[in-house]
């Protein structure tokens, strides 16, 4: 969290010696607060003050990274409770649970299925990004062997066990993959688990449904020298998990309560619809990692899409590249539909075109990611910009009929667009839903 200039000033030497290049310590503090200068520019700042400043400026919720390389998942460092207040910062990890009690073949099949849980959404890959191996067998050798196989997927790994020793042996086996050691045992043993995590330099997960107990646990772990902690209420009812997730996030962000200033993990056990609903809710309301059991593709896609939606930056419109898209392999006789490069506009057109099975060109005009009506009102979707896009994309070489179809909502521009572009302009349906019937019946070459 950014500190105010005055808060920084409190810790400065107050010598006004100008060595930092500024006339006074206060001026320097202001520069640091606005990010235009760094503490290193003051040669007189002692280690103690430096430590205090670092502590005070630490974000209210810690950023914890699990996994390494391309498979790393960073969670936490959230700044708001409601995305409209700014944005949700670091998309939660979605982990599929795997029990180490599975037979070898079953384990391999499940890991294989997890690998396949990757889907395309608006040109981005949406995938399950973690595997959670649970020590259901109670056998630490089996646990370590399963951990190794899971780590081979290249996704971030969570190791779940109530036995600190088992966590230690499995954790050391794949320590270079930076797994999360999730200790599901009682609060009494948290120090032992914390020591293991410190020793292996790995993040630690701990659980208790009680906010008081979990605060005690994080404090003990912190005393043992651990900083990367993930908190969970354990296996509770969804409504109670949500309460835990909400209250810990509030305590961290609104009360700056350090013992709860860590990201969280939530379990959505089971493969029934209630578990899918719960997983989606945990994504929306504050989990850093959601552990699911289901590998049913439609269910996983729904959960991943909830994540895609809630972590979208509300201040940035989602855009697609402004260009001419080819759907269903269109030839030069195929229709050409015009829309904007606002992702939602483009994809609603695209999905209708796909559904129609009619080979079609779609021209996404650069409207800086605004929708048809908004862009039209802001003069970004007009005869000039559309004509320009037709020229730029070489549309005339792609279709022989020299006809383009504009959204029905901007029918008023059809005449001036014809003049400006020299193309013949047809007025299409007002809403994307009308596209299928338009293409299959009304579109005439």
């Amino acid at each position: 969290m950014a500190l105010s200039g005055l808060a920084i000033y409190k810790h400065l030497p107050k010598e006004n010696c100008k060595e930092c290049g500024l006339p006074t310590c206060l001026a320097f503090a202001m520069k640091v607060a606005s990010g235009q200068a760094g503490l290193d520019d003051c040669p007189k700042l002692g280690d103690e003050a430096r430590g205090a400043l670092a502590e005070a400026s630490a974000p209210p919720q810690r950023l914890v990274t699990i996994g390494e390389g391309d498979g790393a998942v960073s969670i936490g460092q959230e700044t708001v409770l409601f995305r409209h207040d700014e944005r949700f910062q670091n998309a939660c990890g979605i982990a599929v649970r795997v029990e180490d009690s599975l037979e070898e073949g079953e384990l391999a099949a499940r890991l294989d299925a997890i690998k396949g849980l990757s889907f395309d959404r608006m040109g981005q890959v949406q995938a399950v990004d973690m595997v959670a191996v649970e020590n259901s067998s109670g056998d630490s050798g089996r646990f370590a062997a399963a951990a190794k196989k899971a780590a081979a997927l290249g996704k971030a790994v969570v190791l779940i066990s109530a036995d600190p020793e088992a966590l230690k042996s499995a954790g050391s086996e794949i320590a270079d993959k930076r797994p999360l050691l999730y200790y599901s045992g009682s609060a009494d043993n948290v120090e032992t688990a914390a020591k293991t995590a410190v020793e292996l330099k790995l993040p630690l997960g701990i659980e208790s449904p009680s906010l008081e107990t979990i605060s005690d646990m994080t404090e003990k772990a912190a005393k043992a020298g651990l900083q990367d902690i993930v908190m969970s209420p354990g296996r509770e009812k969804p409504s109670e998990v949500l309460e835990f997730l909400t209250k810990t996030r509030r305590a961290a962000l609104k009360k700056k309560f350090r013992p709860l200033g860590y990201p969280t993990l939530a379990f959505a056990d089971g493969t029934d619809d209630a578990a899918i609903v719960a997983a989606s809710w945990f994504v929306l309301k504050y989990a850093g990692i959601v552990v699911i059991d289901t590998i049913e593709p439609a269910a996983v896609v729904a959960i991943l899409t909830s994540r895609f939606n809630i972590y979208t930056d509300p201040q940035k419109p989602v855009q697609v590249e402004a260009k001419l898209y080819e759907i269903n392999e269109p030839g030069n006789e195929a229709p050409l539909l015009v829309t904007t490069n606002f992702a939602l506009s483009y994809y609603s057109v695209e999905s209708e075109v796909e559904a129609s099975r009619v080979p079609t060109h779609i021209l996404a005009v650069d409207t800086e990611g605004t929708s048809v009506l908004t862009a039209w009102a802001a003069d970004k979707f007009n005869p000039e910009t559309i004509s320009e896009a037709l020229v730029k994309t070489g549309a005339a070489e792609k279709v022989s009929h020299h006809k383009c179809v504009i959204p029905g909502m901007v029918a008023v521009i059809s005449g001036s667009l014809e003049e400006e572009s020299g193309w013949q302009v047809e007025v299409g349906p007002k809403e994307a839903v009308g596209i299928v019937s338009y293409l299959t019946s009304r579109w005439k070459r």
Partner: protein
Amino acid sequence: MEVPDTSESWKTKINTVAIGATQDEGGTRAGVVRVGGAGCIPGAAYEGDAGERPVVAVEVWDVAPDNWPAELTRHYGDALNDPGAWAQKGIEMGADLVCLKLTGTHPDAADRSAEEAATTVKAVLKAVDVPLIVWGCGVPEKDNKVLPACASAASGENCLLGSITEKNYRTLVAACLADGHKLISESPLDINIAKQVNILAQDSGFDLKDIVIFPTTGALGYGLEYVYSIMERGRIAGLSGDQLLQQPVISDVGAEAWRAKEARASDDDVPGLGPAERRGPLWEGITATNLLQAGGDIFIMRHPEAMKMFKEAVDEFMGVGSV
């Protein structure tokens, strides 16, 4: 260790709106559906009054839809040709009330007349004894003819009628005042317009406490985040004392979710996503349960499995679930 108290308390509650009228109240419904009343943010029953249970309204059309996927139509069969029978099926599926959409009155569709629409309203009221929502086709000139006729056909039944917009509200406000109905005020993903429509209704003599807000709806993956944030912002403003946003919210989930290709596409078109009988209900169900977390009160739905999923989730949402 002592943990700081983070509970939130709010100045006011969301209005409670009753839909439907029993015989004692001048109607013919077996019961009344109450929505709203929340005194806390969605899902926070642990720190405040969660209000009335969010309800499901089954979506019924006055004409048989020609573009619904088989995964939907197979649950209704021939009832799709008979709004009364369709409504009955929806109630059997677990819906709490009926939302009759007068799609067939649209000039580009069947262009059914006001009289025909009124007859359909009466038929549905006769077929089921739950409260009724009546929704026009969205073309102002047509709605202004059709909806007053429906309002008077359902006089005294305390229906929820919609929708009024910034540009078209006078006629419908007058009809609802005359025949004793509640109103849906529609605004396109815009808090200020939502307030504006409510002011216009209020200035025309309509009680803000008789209004339900429709902020429009977006499906999972297709704009859900916009409507989620609008609903969340609106709810917080309402709880904080803004009388123009203290209304319960209605979400048109079924119509939006079933436009998504994840729900509607045939199995061949989306290989790897599993069978339509799972994809569709999941898409509709998760759209609804996600919006529950943003502050929805009435959910218009289509698929029986999605309704079931939603209703079970509501138990958990209200803090009384046993999952």
